[in-house]
């Protein structure tokens, strides 16, 4: 549990910059949610039996959680590791690189969860959730955050410069967002693309959260949870492997 002190360090910085952090994390996804949800939604009577904004809310919740987790673990994490040498200083204490990796992933997941759960709060306040089942989307959002934090941190410990992250963002995250059922049902996609989506974590997050907002339990919930847990666990293991390598130089 030594990673907790790393988590608390990041938490303390976040608290100091609270207003700016919350604004940037939430303003963007909420503007998208209402802009696209109501604007585009006016043209679409219903999607999969839901209003378009309720349909899109699940996608937007997961996407915003994914972006918060990725930005925190990659850009902020790289700044701490590479720019400020904060990790070097932590290693003088009785912590090892594994503790730092765990603390960073847990922190980014926590911050992402806050984004996801705030959006969920907005969804509830605007009456878009059909039943109290929607609270189950809270742990789901954490799982989405954990998966993307862990994968993001692999990028961080492999990165030699900031440019590296643009490839990941542009080549992976943006296309993933398009094919994971965020904006439209995956069934609309050609089969090969749908198969790709099913291999990626965002799709599974959306597949859990969308039925919960609609007031149903997700089908094949265990599969979706397992994929997210798998990404988190594999990402964690890989991030530790590459971090150890980087810090043994």
């Amino acid at each position, binding site marked *: 549990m030594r990673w907790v002190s790393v988590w608390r*360090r990041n938490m*303390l910085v976040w608290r100091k910059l609270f207003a700016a952090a919350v604004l940037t994390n939430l303003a963007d996804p909420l503007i998208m949610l209402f802009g696209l949800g109501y604007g585009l939604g006016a043209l679409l009577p219903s999607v999969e039996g839901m209003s378009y904004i309720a349909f899109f809310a699940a996608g937007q919740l997961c996407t915003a959680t994914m972006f918060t987790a990725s930005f925190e673990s990659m850009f902020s994490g790289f700044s701490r590791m590479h720019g*400020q040498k904060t990790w070097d200083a932590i290693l003088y*204490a*009785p912590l*090892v690189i594994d503790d730092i990796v765990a603390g960073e992933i847990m922190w980014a997941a926590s911050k992402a969860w806050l984004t996801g759960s705030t959006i969920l709060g907005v969804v509830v306040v605007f009456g878009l959730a059909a039943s109290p089942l929607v609270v189950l989307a809270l742990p789901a959002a954490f799982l989405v955050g954990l998966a993307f934090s862990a994968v993001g941190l692999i990028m961080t410990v492999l990165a030699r410069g900031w440019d590296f992250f643009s490839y990941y963002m542009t080549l992976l995250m943006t296309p993933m967002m398009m094919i994971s059922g965020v904006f439209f049902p995956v069934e609309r996609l050609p089969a090969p693309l749908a198969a790709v989506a099913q291999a990626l974590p965002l799709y599974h997050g959306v597949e859990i959260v969308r039925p919960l907002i609609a007031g149903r339990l997700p089908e094949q919930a265990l599969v979706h949870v397992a994929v997210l847990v798998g990404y988190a666990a594999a990402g964690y293991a890989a991030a530790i492997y590459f971090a150890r390598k980087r810090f043994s130089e």
Partner: protein
Amino acid sequence: MSALAARGLRKSYGGTEVVSGIDLEVASGECFGLLGPNGAGKTTTLRLCLGLITPDAGEIELLGEPVPRRAREARARVGVVPQFDNLDPDFTVAENLIVFGRYFGMAAADIQARIPALLEFAGLSGRGDAKINTLSGGMKRRLTLARALVNDPQIVFMDEPTTGLDPQARHLIWERMRRLTQEGKTLVLTTHFMEEAERLCQRLAIMDHGRIIAEGSPRALIAQHIEPQVLEVHGPGYEAWMAQARSLAPRVERAGDTVFVYADDVAPILKTLAAGEELAYLHRQASLEDVFLKLTGRDLRD
């Protein structure tokens, strides 16, 4: 009991051996200096001793703990002052100490209780709420030193503690380091300032190309490796004079247009200079720097 003992340490990076078989023994309460030109392997040796990297060969015992196997346990009682400050820029002076104390698993109340004394030590009393980027280079260095003491360590490792500081700031750091040794703490420092090593260290080792090439107290090293008197001579006609000096002194060296003459007795050589030549000279006692240059050469290290 020795605070730090290392035997047969070796470490290579990409086929280049940076540390090539080092033995070290630092007694408890001692101030030990590791000297060497840039790239001699000093920082790598420190990182090995702290268990931050794993040696290719050799054994390390730090405060009775085998390293790197139990480096975590050892580091709980160790302080580190790195070569480049890595204070947390997001925090104030006091927050830096609090957050760092937490890494050691210290309770908030215990850290808070230590802060006034640590700030006093750093000469930063009343500056607890200051932001890091408002501190001068010397203040940052002192805060880094205070941060290394947050866990009340038995041994403090300092990697070039005064590099880049002005003389005032440097003297203050030296004074604080002496205070630490008086409190019974063991200090291990790397430096390439001979003056620093001569003033502070009871014992030192000179490193070059990954090896220790001399070891002992500053005085013993000077007595053992170099003639006690030095003449530095420069000016027109120094080359002709150099030939003359060679017949009178056991060791004559030239660096650029300056001649260095080392001898047990320089009186006969001084006579040749008094003969009215236009040569300028400086007569002084041999120092650790002379030993260092003799052992590691006068060539530039980049």
